[in-house]
């Protein structure tokens, strides 16, 4: 039990440092997002469609929105589909991204510059542009993907329709998202690898450890915090992704058999102008993704605490 320390301005100033450092962020976020977050929650308990929006007055209906959504079998179908989709996307992104980061260390300088420039080029593509280019490459009429596959004698892909079935559609979306997400994971992990203490690696080499042991005992612990945050972020983003599926599969191809949660909340809530229901689905999405990522988040928050 610490002795009661005498009050002094110096101690007060010292104790208040972290709060002052955090204050600007709190103020910035609070001023802009405070009311919308509050409003989102209150909307989820109201019937609030277009007429209510125009009259600025909604009816309080308690948990009815939630009941309606949770009682809709479509919601559960979409949820299951999205969970599987998220696992596939996050798994591929993290695995490939980390491998590329490790590869970058092994490359000679010119090739490293080339590859990182390539990564940034991919990263720099806006999602809306990437979708159009991807669609253009895979289009039915004269897509270059069909051309390449036919030329490589993988089969006759002349005018193969990649958007004919939900599985095919979602696979295309997965390819697009993983492609777009790898650069950030690779670059961030590579930056983290730069923090790996060289002398420890050399010590391990001199002890006769192979590359896998070095990775497991020296490299991985150092980049663990970064991998944790990247995985958490990937889960969060891939679960709620909207632009890529909606634009790549196409608004006119969206139907109940290929909805993902991000598209579902947009169509059921906002395209229908049913804002109360949309808010309820948004809150549910928040709770679900929190549950999905809780393992990583807890590790992030608890294990890596300051001294």
């Amino acid at each position, binding site marked *: 039990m610490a002795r009661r320390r005498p009050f002094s301005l110096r101690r007060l100033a010292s104790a208040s440092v972290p*709060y002052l*450092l955090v204050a600007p962020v709190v103020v*910035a*976020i609070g*001023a*802009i*997002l405070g*009311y919308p977050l509050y*409003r*989102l929650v209150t909307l989820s308990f109201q019937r609030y469609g277009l007429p209510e929006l125009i009259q600025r007055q909604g009816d309080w209906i308690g948990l009815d929105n939630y009941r309606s959504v949770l009682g809709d079998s479509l919601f559960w179908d979409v949820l299951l589909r999205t969970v599987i989709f998220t696992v596939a996307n996050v798994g591929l992104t993290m695995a490939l991204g980390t491998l590329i980061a490790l*590869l970058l260390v*092994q490359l000679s300088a010119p*090739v490293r510059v*080339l*590859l*990182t*420039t*390539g990564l*940034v*080029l*991919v990263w*720099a*593509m*806006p*999602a*809306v*542009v990437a979708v*159009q*280019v991807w669609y253009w*490459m895979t289009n039915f009429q*004269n*897509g*270059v993907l069909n051309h390449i596959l036919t030329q490589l004698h993988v089969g006759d892909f002349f005018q193969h329709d990649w958007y004919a079935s939900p599985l095919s559609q979602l696979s295309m979306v997965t390819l697009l998202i993983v492609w777009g997400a790898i650069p950030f994971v690779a*670059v*961030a992990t590579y*930056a*983290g690898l*730069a*923090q790996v203490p*060289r002398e420890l690696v050399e010590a391990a*080499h001199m002890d006769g450890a192979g590359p896998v042991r070095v990775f497991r005992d020296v490299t991985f612990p150092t980049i663990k915090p*970064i991998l944790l945050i990247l995985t*958490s*972020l990937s889960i*969060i983003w891939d679960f709620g992704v909207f*632009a890529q599926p909606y634009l790549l599969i196409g608004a006119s191809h969206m139907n109940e058999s290929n909805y993902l949660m991000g598209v579902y909340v947009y169509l059921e*809530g*906002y395209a229908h102008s049913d*804002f109360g229901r*949309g*808010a309820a689905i*948004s*809150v549910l*999405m928040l709770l679900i993704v*929190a549950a999905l990522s809780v393992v990583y988040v807890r590790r992030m*928050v608890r294990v*890596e*605490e*300051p*001294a």
Partner: protein
Amino acid sequence: MSSVSAAPAPRRRRRGGLLRRRAWDLVGLALFVVLVFPVFWMISTAFKPDDEINALTPTWITTSPTLDHFRDAMARPYFWDTVQNTLIVVGVAVSASIVLAFLAAVALAKYRFTGSRLFVVLMLGILMLPPVGLIIPLYVVLARYGLTNALTGVILTYLTFTLPFAVLTLRSFILGIPRELEEAAMVDGSSRLGAFVRILLPLVAPGLVATSVFAFITAWNEYIFASVILTDQANHTTTVWLSYFLGTSRNVDWGALMAASTLTAIPVIAFFLLVQRRIAFGLTSGAVRG
């Protein structure tokens, strides 16, 4: 990220040597080709004449390149205004975001204080919300401040959405720095914060740059909030401007769209090339200290 001078010391490469390096290089090159192909396709299409773009059999690189699509793209209304707007929005949002986030990340990583865990959870919570749910309430808030159809409104929006991500990522980077280095510096007699800023800041530089690049790209590529907040074309950012190529019920000019996309990606590349030297600095200083 490239490091211009941080080639590892030769004695570390005694196993495998040159052949191994060449093999990895080949893998790297193959990976580059596969990853960058869509980008290549976009740029290649931008230079193709229309009949080649629509031809049933695609051509890899056109033999009769044309600058028409670039001209058409730049002739579209408000092209230069759009570029300027985006540079302002992204520049201010990212700079402010990184500075604020860094301060908060330092607090979270280096201090124990009540509410720190709650703060981290809150940051994650904001990230987990689907943005579409916040559009209309956010618009209402901005309307109340008189910030709709204004770049300031977009800047503030981007700030609030970049901050949670930046805070969490920077916190992880800072936590990844071995404590021995920090303690060694404190032996000097410098205060804790002083030691951190002077000695450890360079070590976090790679993380800072990775985060700023991501924040830059996210802000540069953001569409949905910018499109709802900004109604006047003179105030648009590049992604909103690009959507107009496809938003008409008339014909779509693919060549111009690809040219416009190419043009709007250039500043991001430029930004990356600018900052890659900073990372080299971070790497070498780490090697020297180590």
